[in-house]
């Protein structure tokens, strides 16, 4: 066998990329050829050492659970219904407050200008209106931060 082809096959073998049929044929060749077998062992050793350098000690990583696991559908519906009724109640209360006349300020108290609140809720509406993102079943810290920031600036 051509030595270059043999080496290429041995490297593929060390990297675990040979098809089973070729693997069998190569094993037969190695059994009959000590020099090739030595070379194969060296290559396997090289790859094993490289793997041990490249592979970190297995970290204990936990895949963030999909949102559906955190919020089972039935519970999510209940929570959403509760949130909707709260929002409706708050809206009605706000309208009622707006309808009442403001209390006159005492004569000795100087009226102060209302604090100016600059609200930047940049991406909330965009995020919420995108049906693909709304249907997203995954938890995202970035998304949560965006929503929280938008909510805070809306206050």
């Amino acid at each position, binding site marked *: 066998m051509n030595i270059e082809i043999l080496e290429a096959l041995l*490297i593929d073998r*060390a990297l675990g*990329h040979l098809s089973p049929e070729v693997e069998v044929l190569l094993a037969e060749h190695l059994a009959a050829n000590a020099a090739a077998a030595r070379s194969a062992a060296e290559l396997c050793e090289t*790859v094993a*050492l490289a793997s041990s350098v*490249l592979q970190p000690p297995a970290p204990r*990583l936990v895949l*963030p659970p999909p949102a559906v696991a955190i919020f089972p559908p039935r519970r999510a519906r209940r929570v959403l219904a509760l949130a909707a009724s709260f929002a409706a109640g708050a809206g009605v209360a706000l309208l009622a407050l707006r309808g009442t006349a403001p209390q006159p300020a005492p004569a000795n108290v100087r009226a102060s200008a209302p604090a100016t609140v600059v609200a930047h809720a940049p991406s909330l509406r965009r995020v919420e209106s995108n049906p693909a993102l709304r249907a997203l079943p995954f938890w995202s810290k970035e*998304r949560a931060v965006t929503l929280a920031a938008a909510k805070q600036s809306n206050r």
Partner: protein
Amino acid sequence: MRSDSHDIGRLYEQHGGEVLHYLARRCPEEAAQDLLQETFLQVVRSADRLEGVTLPRAWLFGIARHLLAGHFRRQAKAEPAGEIAPETMIADREDGRLPAMREAIAQLAPELRETLELRLTDDLSYEEIASVLGVPVGTVRSRLHNAVRRLRAVLTLPETKP
């Protein structure tokens, strides 16, 4: 839409862990988790392409790799892609040849090192690596062969220690 969500959910279950490990080996875990979610956000955004994807794992790794590059660019203390983070280095006591191997890997050209990492650490096939890196399979094979030949040369050098 439901079938898309279902497919994406299945992708997440099947490959989310591998993508998370890929990311966490290259950046802090918290950033890795954000990048993982960002990866799947991208998948949702391009859900219409899902049907045409033949190597879903490679597709996910490709997106994650792209996002990781963006993450490094944004970071002031950018760590070059494929760099071996100090915390990922294992103790040298097991094998005296490990320091030489580590040095040899660090001296590999970035494209050789990244290709080798995708094969040895992330266990991607040659075809998947080709898809992730956007190069032909033949290029992946020749990069891997070059890398292994160079590393083997380091190991077969005569001992220089006294």
